[in-house]
């Protein structure tokens, strides 16, 4: 069987889609039977000579082509690579319409979509609807995303939508030494997010607003916010206005090793986001045995529950305060948290994907 993987990017960035599509590449290669071949076509990556490729590939990997953001090149390569292909896995809804068109000019192949989150929670154009209706499988990263797709495309056959929950990168290292900056005696709350205006739904501002309530109970508590973006000045202003600037630390964008240290050192991880398709960051925190605070919204409640963390209504500041205080006062068992995180480990993901595509 010949399989083609289409993705917006693989190794170019460390966004959620790139990370999960690398896992798809690895799982497809490992699930390939003898004689099967997996090709990959990536829109944004320009060179795919990255040393990491070897870690995600097996001998089943055939062509791996990056198009350096050239849509024309991507179109040409897609036309070429779909010749004789049996199934195509597509990493973004925008690429699905192309596949639908190619499927009409090429011989019929099966194509499936990986539906991540916000990009599919909306009404679809006629072309997108036709492309979705023609898909063999829609691989949803969470039940929430599955239900959103059915909401906006109710004519889809529900059995074609499979939940293949996201997984952590199997090469994530957790052997970091806890890093607790000198003078931090109180509980450390960690948040990791892009801090752009478009990502303001992530709820980092609500965490800052909750901090005064947390400080009343734990005066030495610290909020450490990892990430960068154009929303940073607003968030800094908010902390200053609430007179808690000394308790909020913006680390900016940091390297992987530093991030691992942050995870290892915190008491809890918090991202009370309104629209997480899944929330890979919660899984990362769980790998370090850290309890998570998430909002009761989007796909997050499928990852975070009462045993491994706490849920609060999005934007409900008193509830966020209460949830943080609960997690600090009633620590969750780190072993149980890690065990819960393991239910989303790569081997389980690979099996779920194989079953969905069977």
């Amino acid at each position: 069987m010949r399989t083609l993987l289409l993705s917006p990017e693989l190794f170019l960035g460390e966004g959620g889609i790139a990370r999960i599509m690398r896992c798809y590449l690895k799982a497809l290669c490992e699930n390939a039977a003898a004689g099967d071949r997996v090709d990959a076509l990536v829109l944004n990556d320009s060179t795919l000579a990255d040393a990491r490729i070897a870690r995600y590939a097996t001998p089943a990997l055939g062509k791996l082509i990056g198009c350096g953001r050239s849509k024309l090149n991507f179109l040409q390569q897609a036309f070429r690579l779909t010749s004789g292909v049996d199934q195509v896995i597509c990493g973004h809804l925008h690429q699905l319409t192309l596949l639908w068109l190619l499927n009409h000019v090429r011989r019929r192949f099966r194509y499936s979509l990986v539906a991540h989150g916000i990009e599919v929670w909306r009404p679809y154009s006629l072309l997108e609807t036709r492309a979705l209706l023609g898909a063999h499988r829609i691989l949803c990263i969470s039940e929430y995303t599955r239900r959103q797709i059915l909401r906006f495309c109710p004519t889809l056959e529900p059995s074609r939508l499979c939940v293949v929950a996201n997984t952590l990168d199997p090469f994530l290292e957790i052997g970091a030494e806890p890093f607790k900056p000198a003078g931090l005696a109180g509980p450390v709350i960690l948040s990791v997010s892009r801090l752009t205006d478009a990502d303001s739904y992530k709820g980092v501002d609500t965490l800052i607003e909750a901090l005064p309530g947390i400080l009343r109970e734990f005066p030495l508590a610290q909020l450490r916010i990892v990430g960068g973006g154009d929303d940073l000045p607003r968030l800094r202003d908010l902390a200053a206005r609430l007179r808690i600037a000394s308790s909020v630390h913006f680390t900016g964008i940091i390297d992987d090793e530093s991030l691992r240290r942050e995870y290892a050192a915190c008491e809890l991880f918090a991202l009370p986001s309104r629209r997480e398709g899944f929330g890979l960051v919660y899984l990362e925190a769980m790998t370090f045995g850290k309890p998570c605070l998430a909002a009761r919204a989007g796909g997050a409640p499928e990852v975070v529950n009462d045993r491994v963390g706490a849920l609060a209504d999005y934007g409900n500041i008193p509830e966020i305060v209460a949830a943080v205080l609960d997690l600090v006062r009633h620590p969750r068992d780190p072993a149980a948290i890690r065990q819960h995180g393991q239910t989303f480990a790569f081997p389980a993901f690979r099996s779920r994907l194989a079953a969905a595509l069977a």
Partner: protein
Amino acid sequence: MCGIAGIVAPLLDQAVRESVLARMIDRQRHRGPDDSGFVSNASASLGMARLAIIDPAHGHQPMSSPDRRFHLVFNGAIYNHRELRTTLESDWTFRTHCDTEVLLAAFVRHGPDCLGKLRGMFAFAVWDAQEQVLFAARDGLGIKPLYYVRRPDRSLIFASELNAVLASRLVEREIDATSVGEYLAWFSVPAPRTIYRGIANLPAGHSLRLDREGRLSTQAWWSLPTHQQPHQIARDYSAFAHGLREQLDDSIRAHRVADVPVGAFLSGGMDSTAIAGLMIRGGARQLKTFSIGFEEAGYAEQDSAREAARFLGTEHHEDILTGARVAADLPRILAAFDQPTGDGINTYYASALASRNGVKVALSGLGGDELFGTYPSFRDLPKLQRLLPWWRRLPQKTQQWIVAKLRSKPQTRARKLADFLAHARDLHELASLQRRVLPEVSRLALLSSEARALATRLGPHHPMLEDFAFDLTSADDFQIVSAWELRTYMANVLLRDSDVMSMAHSLELRVPFVDTRLLEWLWPQRSYFKRDPRHPKRALADAVADVVPASIRKRPKQGFTLPFPLWMREELRPFLDETFSSSSLAHCPWLNAPAVTALWKDYIDGTDSRAWSRVWTVAMLVAFVNRKPEGLNTNSH
């Protein structure tokens, strides 16, 4: 029908817990003047005040299982209790004929799965003393309420009314600025929020579980039917009307189950006349009916009610309301509120009338509009939905320009259209927005800057938008609009107000149209049978043609509206002047006082009488905050 309350707090001294419970029960004595009781052990205390309707001599609550493992407090009525009883008798020796014992036996046998077997209106809680677990649930459509608070020590307090929760004195009486924003949008605070910070309203069709480690979880146990059984769907209109009549007869039969006098509200409209007519056809003798009327031209509906009563031969009672009387009674009405509401005053007076005339149970026609599609939303929203794809094709700048133009217009209709265009992507979002009292720009303008920031963060949509939309993925347009009407305006305004206002007069109000069995039969039927655009409620009219006079069946739908536009400029004017005074508004830090004052002044100076509901909604919020909630006295003359 009762008021229930409870507290699960292992860390709290038992004697303290019992005194807290006593205060909570006492605060909802009006819900159950016939009996009261409590049960208490090392971790939990449960209590109730009972209005005895079925087997009045027995059925004392809390009711415990023979082995003292399970303890139940229950508010409501299980209409199929006799039917259920026969299925449970093999392993339960019944001591009473009360529905409470049937519910207890069903829970002991089936656990939470018993919920699917119940037909009725209910909110109940069961304490499992062995497992140290509390389980509570509300009926599918949210007829009976249940409020709860989770405290920082992981304890839990619950009750049938918010006033009772506050009477525990373990919860702060703090108005939630976020809820104020929600109230201004929806006429009431939608579940799961309440007007008070930290107190939650268990949504309709949800259950709650508190385990021995103090972990709390809630989940939906009922949803609108999704799987259609082809054999249930009527082949043609005649079969549909015949089937509908059978279902209505069955619902009326179930809702008449009581060992005390049962009456009916009769406005003279199609729904209430159908209910009263079916009751009589079902065997009700000397039925007492009740209606509210007005002297003001254009509002007086008493002639219709009298006509219906004459046709049916009921013992009819009516109460003619005047603005002066409503103005005098407002302090008592406000004291009965447990949350502010822009509605409910008619139910307050109708319930008082029924109660004065010796009726303990009354049936109401509430719910007919939602089931048979008589609201304008059923006509307008599907049309708007068809325009949305064309709207999305316009360039974004053009869209923004049009929305800004519409928002700058003073007319509410233009501003609401702007909300639809700016925020709605599908029929669910249109339906979510259409029941808003105030357009978004008007709502935000009335809020203080802090409350405005909170409201902006949550956005204009209903808080349960996604839950409702996900439940209805295979629904047609009629079903989607019907579901939204059932689950928003009906559940959060009509049913909630009906419960509070009828209970203020110790009256059990039953709603045969809001019946899960009827709904489950009606839901999959063809929409064009249920709603004929040319003849509103044709199906209902045809199904009850023998019990409703032709003059009522053929009359165009008239909304039941009190003469507020007139009263607010006359008899209620002093109350409103006081309500919108700077001293009253000083107690409302989450409102933008100058904007609120301007809203009132514009209404008085203007000529748009349709604006009354927006002004009244804000007035009820301000008056609620400034009310004297203690000393509830429901006597009304």
